[in-house]
């Protein structure tokens, strides 16, 4: 089985390339040494230091709140958009709508961030809302980005589901609303949940967009981390990285589980 072995080697190299840096970071998080890239024996001191770092903890809590809010808003907007794209037939402007919904997926984040900043500034000048830049603007910006992902996931889910399911429900006596509630919604529920988690994760680790649209009151975890880096690394960053890797990894695992294709 020469070929089998070659494939195993290639896979091993590929995984090492992807995962070695991350595993290294997680490993150093448990190092006792002050220098973040030097092994000094096993210790949990940096996790303790991290928990005691109020600025970081506060930023983490804010990030979680923003991520949850942005993800929820994204599910609402993206879910409806995905539904429209999958089920409303060839309505006027459908292609344009689809392209616009998907735009944040392909636009460089710098462009998205800058354009949102301009929008928020203009809005504030025009109607006084949102007042200043901070958590609200970051939440709105992340919801925009997340909605694109949710729309794609929901649309894909509905596209693979039989269109006649809703018709069958109506044929059996369900009004369109009941059919939506008892058939369409349960069908897309896993996609909505997966979309929520994707949007949540996306918001949690975004630096670029957040640094455009956030203000002093909107320091999210990645931004706080980034500014810490400029002053020099401490192993606390490793510990934080380990925690984030764990959290994001769990989330992505859940997404994969939710979007697993059904047999038959």
């Amino acid at each position: 089985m020469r070929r089998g072995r070659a494939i195993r080697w290639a896979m091993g190299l590929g995984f090492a390339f992807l995962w070695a840096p991350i595993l290294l970071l997680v490993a150093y998080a448990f190092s006792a040494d002050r220098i973040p890239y030097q092994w000094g024996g096993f210790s949990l001191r940096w996790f303790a230091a991290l928990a005691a770092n109020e600025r970081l903890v506060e930023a983490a809590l804010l990030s979680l709140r923003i991520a949850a809010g942005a993800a929820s808003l994204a599910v609402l907007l993206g879910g409806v958009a995905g539904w429209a794209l999958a089920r409303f037939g060839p309505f006027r402007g459908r292609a344009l709508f689809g392209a616009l919904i998907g735009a944040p997926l392909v636009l460089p984040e710098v462009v998205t961030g800058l354009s949102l900043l301009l929008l928020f500034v203009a809005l504030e000048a025009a109607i006084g809302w949102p007042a200043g830049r901070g958590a609200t603007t970051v939440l709105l910006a992340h919801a925009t980005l997340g909605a694109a992902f949710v729309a794609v996931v929901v649309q894909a889910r509905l596209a693979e589901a039989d269109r006649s399911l809703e018709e069958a429900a109506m044929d059996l006596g369900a009004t369109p609303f009941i059919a939506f509630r008892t058939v369409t919604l349960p069908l897309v529920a896993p996609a909505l949940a997966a979309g929520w988690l994707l949007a949540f994760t996306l918001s949690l680790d975004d630096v670029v967009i957040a640094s455009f649209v956030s203000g002093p009151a909107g320091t999210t975890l990645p931004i706080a981390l980034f500014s810490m880096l400029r002053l020099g690394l401490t192993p606390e960053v490793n510990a934080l990285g380990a925690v984030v890797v764990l959290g994001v990894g769990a989330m992505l695992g859940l997404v994969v589980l939710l979007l697993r294709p059904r047999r038959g």
Partner: protein
Amino acid sequence: MGALLSAEALTKRFGATVALDALDLDIAEGEFFALLGGSGSGKSTLLRIIAGFEAPDAGRLLLDGRDISATPPWARPVNMMFQSYALFPHLTVADNVAYGLRRAGVAAAERARRVGDALAMVGLEGFDRRRPQQLSGGQKQRVALARSLVMRPRLLLLDEPLGALDAGLRERTGFELRALQRETGAAFVMVTHDQEEALALADRVALLDGGRIAQVGPPRAIYERPASRFVARFLGAANVLEGRAADGRFESAEAGITFAGEIPPGTVAVALRPERIAILATPGEGPNSVRGRVEDVAFRGDDSLLLVRTEAGAVLRVAHAEEDGAPPARGADIVLGWAAADVVALPA
């Protein structure tokens, strides 16, 4: 009157294409009716209009004499079995079957009893906890049937009910469909593109062409006496020869054949079934006979199908029964003949 369902001048257009062209149709209480046609014939559109998923542009649809053209699908006493079966993937078999009863507000005990009865009727006892993904194609079809029949519809619509089944399962399922139809007393309206299926299952068949009914009647009548070239050709088996009628005879120049029989003036073509054509031992002269050469022979079990090219160049399909001995070999020159009564004159 007495029709359960009447379509009156139903018309439906999709953009520039006319799906239904002022179509009239009556379906009687408790009959098994087949809508037969190719793609684009309008058969599926008609089914969807009866179910309520499409609204006709003109014309009326009457159920028991009451106009239901504007009644939404959820308020019609009509149920449909979808071609894809459209089983709800997130519900168990029992919950799928119970779905309509729940919508109708049937109490839990009554619901459980009726779901049990419906599953027993289609031979799926003990499957209630399964999910649709865990069922075979045939089982899914039965669940879909049970889900429709549990509503006790006056009229059950079936969209290509045998279309997704393996060949072996089709015949058995066809007989079961007929048994269920007799048992429930509901009228079944089936859409199919398969003429054998329509002829085998239905009490009456309507053959659709371009949004109109080309012919409607019992299977045997349509098969034996097609009303037009289209019908004769669609039903597949007959030889259809064009030509001119004159003096009670019919001359087909393309085949070099003169047909005698009941040929009314205005006949544009004749149909002749392959099994009605005999191979004659001696060359007969006059009408209803022709010489030809065997181009190919296909064995079909109880008979062989010969392709015979006449001297004028047309190809006739001839069935040679096994009990008449071995069929002539390829390349053999033979003489064909048939009875005048077997010549079907086609006016259109």
